[in-house]
């Protein structure tokens, strides 16, 4: 992903909307006995689209904002979300995502990992009462819900960040085909504007 200041703004907007939606909408829903959580979904999606660094930084910021808004222990969510964002990014950097089901599966699995890690940190920070096994069921169901929610949300985030995603820019160029001699002037100008970014992204000068 090519992160310009405009793309940075879009990412910030995605994160703010995600936090507000989670706090004001998703946390009020009860599906299969638990509440869906889209925050790990967004961190993992940004990692899958932007790479390890983008995933880690965005995960950290998302966690910080969420903990601040909820007046919770600062750093706990940041630690877990930066971990899942980074892991998602590393996966994307090492493997080509050829199947459209891979992102939702990754999101489901990493959401489960984030929830389990979060619960483990809370346990370590001092839960000295009996713990219910219901926690494991909730973690599993939250993973499943994240998988389902990823089906509409991941493409949506991808669409918002489309101008920055190298694969999409290249694919867009290929689909458009070569510009013929009589093509309208505006189309040529658009291509010229995108050319430096394309050169940077592909390494072809």
């Amino acid at each position: 992903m090519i992160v310009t200041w405009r793309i940075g703004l879009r990412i910030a907007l995605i994160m703010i909307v995600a936090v507000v939606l989670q706090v004001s909408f998703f946390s009020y829903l009860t599906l299969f006995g638990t509440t869906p959580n889209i925050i790990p979904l967004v961190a993992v999606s940004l990692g899958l689209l932007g790479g390890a660094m983008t995933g880690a930084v965005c995960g950290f910021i998302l966690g910080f904002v969420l903990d601040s808004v909820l007046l919770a222990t600062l750093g706990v969510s940041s630690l877990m979300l930066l971990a899942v964002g980074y892991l998602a990014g590393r996966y994307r950097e090492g493997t080509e995502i050829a199947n459209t089901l891979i992102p939702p599966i990754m999101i489901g699995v990493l959401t489960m990992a984030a929830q389990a890690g979060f619960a483990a940190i809370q346990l370590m920070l001092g839960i000295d009462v009996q713990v219910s096994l219901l926690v494991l069921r909730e973690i599993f169901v939250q993973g499943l819900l994240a998988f389902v929610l990823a089906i509409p949300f991941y493409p949506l985030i991808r669409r918002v960040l489309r101008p920055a995603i190298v694969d999409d820019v290249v694919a867009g160029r290929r689909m458009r085909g070569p510009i013929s001699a009589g093509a309208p002037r505006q189309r040529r100008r658009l291509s010229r504007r995108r050319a430096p970014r394309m050169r940077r992204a592909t390494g072809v000068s």
Partner: protein
Amino acid sequence: MYRKQVRRRRAVLVVLVVLALVLISATFSQSSGGPLHTVQQGMASVFSPLEEGATRALKPARDLVNWVSETFNARGENSDLKSDVQKLRARLAKAQSAVGENEQLRKLVGLDQKGVLAGYKPITARVIQRPQTVWYSTVGIDAGSKDGVAVNDPVINGDGLIGRVTDVTPLTAKVTLITDSESSVSATVLPNGPEGVAEPEAGDPSVMLLDFIDKNQPIHEGQMVVTAGWSNGTISSVYPRGIPIGEVRQTTIGQQETYQSIRLEPFADMRDLDIVQVATNGPERPGVPK
């Protein structure tokens, strides 16, 4: 070039992890007026109008999704409720005769007829943040210090005890639920009154455990548990006496145990909190900081 990039990436990652760990330890070590806490409160204040607006705007959509979900659950609940109605009918008959006796006794001893929050100024608030973790530990409400809400104020809803206020911003407050792992409430079992401590079973908001009840005390399923309002003159519970907590669901007496193992079902559903009441400006309780 590639190695430089990898090194830089690792450095950023290490910095972020260290920063997160520093934040965790700093949050635990600093007092409630510390700089991090102030930053947190500032961010919460900035986001609270946005959250409140979004909460109201998205209510129809939320209700629609919950309606679909509840319709599925309602089928199973229907048969359970039918058997509950039969049990409750029998108990209602008993309760009605008890109410008559109670009124007569109250008149006799001249007790006041005020509710359990007598001496408090109740403030109604809406829940704007629900529990985000599997531990059901906190919720956020849309009333804050400007409304007179203070730390350690008890919070109830129509069903019973919810928790207490543990953090306040001018417009919002954080309520630590009785199902939080660090919560414990001095409680008494009605009507004969053995006292114990109600603690949560972490991760399951529909179960609480009542501890420190002697195994020789007769406790039966269906008995109501209320706050004890315990005080020894120097320290006391933050909750006044008589707020309903829950109902005894199961008692187990182990051969080697001194105390009974009692499972309660809280009256208030911590998964579905909407309107709550904060009991503010209450009487001074010894040892309870404000």
